[in-house]
């Protein structure tokens, strides 16, 4: 491999390096830059500049040759990524194709990845629910994984900090397990969703809530966001293409341009991180070794502080590949837990139905979110035969379209005047907490390497008995709730989908109080290498039942401020 350390060491030295430009990496970079830190942000994929690199954002449906559908050829070549709901003709250029970056599935795992500046923040589902102490205290109370070294009070102000900047729409619902935040006006539930919410309140003594899910969209006044160059969400529901209004939060529309404006940020795209460099004499990490994605040339970059936010599994891979005399099993891995206790969210089960009521109503316009059931199982005490619980999505929509019977002029007129209304359709999906365990792990493969000579990642994750019981309970409970609401034609399904398709993989570099059983301390630093911070999904000790991205953002902001405070002490 050619070594291209031709430029002087000084030119390649920054105050901080952030690996990864996705939701957590770019938040770390933005905070560091705001605090005056000269920061290098490294991204393995190509650059995606806001507005400029959204090739499909304003395309009309007829402009897609297959009207959005995937071709058989693409599906055959991409059995994994084709399963992702957002991998369609309009946004497939933002997803990693199967053949490009192979990995080893010791057990089936659908790894959904976005390798570009902005990472998956471009195509994420934008759901931002806060975690609560029912989540942070979970492992200690229920005796799994290890205790989180932090509690809600440690992270509360950072949630507020990131919500105000990212823009979060929602209502103050006053639910203990789903703390309220800094909200822009929320999106109303529709008439049937409201009916269902009221019915649940009555039927379950106020213990089961259906709310409008909080989402990272600018709604109501956009005034606070003009400095970022962002405007209100226009309800296009084409977010996965990149938004020309900056209506939803992404690294590309928000944190990255903001950080660039400070003059403190340098972005190095097309740089595949090989490993973190550990200096045995200094007893700390001094930089990262990268391989240029295109030229394959090796280069090193140096900094006092490093943030490894390469996305959950890739952060594991980088640390596992960062070996030295001091750390033969991966950086900071004295405990041997690196790569272990990975977990995910269980999205297997769905329930659907119909509702004949409210037949005089329909909906109009668009909205970027839908209904949400915060966890109601085992919240205050253990009450089922499985640990933890699940949140659930819930939405109702009115089937509205043309009558497509027959052919000829009658069909044509029906198509052009779509005034036939079916019943309301209602649907729900589960998002179950899975328990991190020793037997679910990622590791480097002993022989297979990628295009850059880096060992491929081997993934071994599976469901367990707790998950099976939870699927069963969700299906029973949701069926019961749909029945109580008078919904009909109730159908249940269990997709048995492999882990990974939830795109909520977490852990492997978990936080904890004890260096013997965890990788990171309460400040998101590697116990053994405190100038290395990790605040992406890999740092999660447990998975909760909330979408995790907001928590990564809050962790990244919190850790960046900690790093700067530490450097000032010296």
């Amino acid at each position, binding site marked *: 491999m050619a070594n291209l350390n031709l430029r002087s060491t000084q030119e390649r030295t920054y105050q901080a390096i952030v690996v990864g430009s996705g939701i957590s990496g770019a938040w770390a970079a933005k905070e560091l830059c705001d605090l005056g830190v000269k920061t290098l942000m490294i991204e393995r994929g190509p650059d995606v500049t806001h507005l400029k690199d959204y090739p499909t954002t304003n395309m009309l449906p007829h402009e897609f040759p297959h*009207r959005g559908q995937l071709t058989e050829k693409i599906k055959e070549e991409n059995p994994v990524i084709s399963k992702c709901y957002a991998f369609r003709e309009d946004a497939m250029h933002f997803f990693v194709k199967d053949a490009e970056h192979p990995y080893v599935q010791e057990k089936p795992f659908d790894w959904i990845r976005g390798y570009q500046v902005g990472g998956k923040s471009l195509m994420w589902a934008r759901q931002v629910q806060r975690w609560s102490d029912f989540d942070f205290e979970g492992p200690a109370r229920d005796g799994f994984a290890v205790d989180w070294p932090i509690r809600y009070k440690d992270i509360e102000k950072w949630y507020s900090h990131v919500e105000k900047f990212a823009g979060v729409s929602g209502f103050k619902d006053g639910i203990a397990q789903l703390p309220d935040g800094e909200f822009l006006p929320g999106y109303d539930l529709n008439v049937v969703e*409201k009916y269902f919410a009221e019915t649940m309140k009555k039927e379950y003594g106020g213990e089961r809530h259906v709310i409008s899910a909080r989402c990272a969209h600018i709604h109501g006044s956009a005034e606070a966001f003009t400095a970022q160059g962002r405007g209100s969400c226009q309800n296009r529901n084409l977010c996965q293409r990149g938004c020309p209004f900056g209506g939803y939060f992404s690294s590309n529309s928000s944190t990255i341009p903001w950080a660039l404006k400070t003059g403190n940020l340098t972005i190095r795209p097309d740089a595949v991180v090989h490993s973190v460099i550990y200096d045995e004499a200094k007893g700390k990490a001094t930089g990262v070794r990268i391989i240029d994605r295109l030229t394959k040339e090796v280069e090193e970059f140096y900094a006092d502080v490093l943030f490894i936010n390469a996305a959950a599994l890739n952060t594991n891979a980088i640390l596992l590949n960062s070996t030295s005399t001091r750390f033969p099993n991966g950086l900071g891995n004295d405990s041997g837990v690196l790569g272990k206790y990975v977990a995910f969210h269980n999205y297997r089960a769905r329930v659907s139905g119909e509702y004949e009521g409210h037949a005089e109503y329909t909906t*109009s316009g668009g909205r970027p979110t839908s209904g949400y059931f915060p966890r109601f199982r085992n919240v205050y005490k253990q009450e089922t035969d499985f640990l933890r619980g699940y949140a659930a999505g819930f939405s109702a929509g009115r089937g509205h379209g043309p009558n497509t019977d027959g052919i000829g002029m009658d069909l*044509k007129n029906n198509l052009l005047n779509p005034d036939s209304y079916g019943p309301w359709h209602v649907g729900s999906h589960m998002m179950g907490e899975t328990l991190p365990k020793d037997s679910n792990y990622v590791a480097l493969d002993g022989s297979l390497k990628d295009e850059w000579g880096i060992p491929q990642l081997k993934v071994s994750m599976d469901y367990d008995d707790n998950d099976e019981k939870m699927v069963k309970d969700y299906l029973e409970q949701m069926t019961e709730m749909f029945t109580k609401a008078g919904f009909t034609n109730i159908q249940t399904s269990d997709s048995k989908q492999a882990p990974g398709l939830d795109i909520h993989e977490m852990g492997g570099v978990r936080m904890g109080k004890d260096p013997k059983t965890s990788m990171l301390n309460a400040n998101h630093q590697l116990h053994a290498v405190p100038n290395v911070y990790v605040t992406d999904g890999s740092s999660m000790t447990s998975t909760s039942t909330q979408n995790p991205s907001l928590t990564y953002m809050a962790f990244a902001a919190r850790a960046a401020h900690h790093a700067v405070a530490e450097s000032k002490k010296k």
Partner: protein
Amino acid sequence: MNRRHALRHIALISGGLALIPSCDFSKEDILAAYENLKITATQKALLAAISDSIIPAGEIKGALDLAVPDFILVMVNDCFTQENQEKFTAGLQAFPDYAEKTAGKKFADLSSKEKETLLVQGLALTGDENPEGTVLAQVGYFLSSTKRFTIQGYMVSEYIQTEIIPYSLIPGEYNGAVLISDLQKPRVNG
């Protein structure tokens, strides 16, 4: 039913095509644009005639004016599994004889009304396990796929979505309780 019997039945239903399946192709070039399908210009013209019956031109344009036949073939070529492509093309191949046998005339010689009647009948075909049934099922599959793609290609066309029922990239603020009786839309006359 023995095999010979079965073959004769297919031959009756499909006009001999089942026994000499390539005879049609030897006379005419296969259209190269649809590389996974063995479609001739004559068959594409037949497909066009069928889509024209499904959504005819009137006060506003019909399927034929909007290159819908080409859209149908692109979708079948690119988005169908090989198995479904074979079903579709077998149905397309068998259709002329099905038409003649059922309506007593070549499809092209039927009146608009007769074409509609024949297509409605054909769309309802589900077939069964025996050989004739298989061919009928292929005809039914071909027609229902053609109808589905005709509707999609027509409705999601530039003409409809810009001139007739403009598609909005900005659908407006959500209203979760709209009274259907308050919705007054001008009727579009096809």
